[in-house]
């Protein structure tokens, strides 16, 4: 298939940029995962801390400097329910 400039322009338009905040949050996943591990470890070693974290998962993640995206909150909930 021949690609004239008009066609190339049309093809380029198919991949618009997602919101920058989404990209940043995804790039922060290694940090988020480490913070999540820390939170779980703290919850496992201290009942009061566990209660505090479980009471507000989003706030607990945010307090670690992590964007509390829905998948991360779900994962934290699941790990603390084990």
């Amino acid at each position: 298939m021949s690609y004239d400039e008009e066609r190339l322009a049309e093809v380029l338009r198919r991949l618009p940029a997602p919101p920058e905040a989404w990209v940043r949050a995804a790039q922060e996943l290694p940090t988020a995962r480490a913070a999540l591990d820390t939170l779980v470890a703290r919850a496992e070693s201290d009942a009061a801390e566990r209660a505090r974290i479980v009471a507000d998962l989003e706030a607990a993640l945010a307090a670690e400097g992590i964007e509390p995206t829905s998948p991360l909150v779900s994962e934290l909930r699941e790990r603390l329910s084990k």
Partner: protein
Amino acid sequence: MAGDAELVRRCLDGERAAWDELVEQYSRYVYAIAHQGYRLRGPDAEDAFQEVFLRVYDRLGSLRDPEALRPWIAQLTRRVCLDRLAAAGRDEPSDLEPTGVEQTMEDLDEAFAVREALGELPEECQEVLDRFFCRDESYRTIGEELGIPSGTIASRISRCLGKLRERFEGRNEPPGGSGEVKA
């Protein structure tokens, strides 16, 4: 641009910059599949987007053929989108494939290949083509942001499209084959 196998290797070695690169390289593709292929919007689209990268991060080590990163991410994204549609409470995921999604996937794969060629052009071309075609910025905004006269933007876009065409068609000449990789 380094190949996907190299990118995967660096990610698995724990190189933080490699993960940033992977997200940067695939964010548009994942977003487009969710948005155009599965018509997810707002929080559903954002949740799916984050879920895909979480799965990629967790499962990258299980990818058998690192050169198959793109089809693997496509497959993960489609699964996540279907799960999200199912969670909305309608049907089983297998009943939820939107009409035309296969054609959309073909279109997006083609766009991904063009974008890879774009990544091999000089920075000034990448910038001006991305701003105009993917971010819908006006000549005036592009001119202001890049510090170039807005009257020269149209000619720069045309020149850069010409370079992109050469680069893209050069990548696709035989004996390169289709470039399709088995997942």
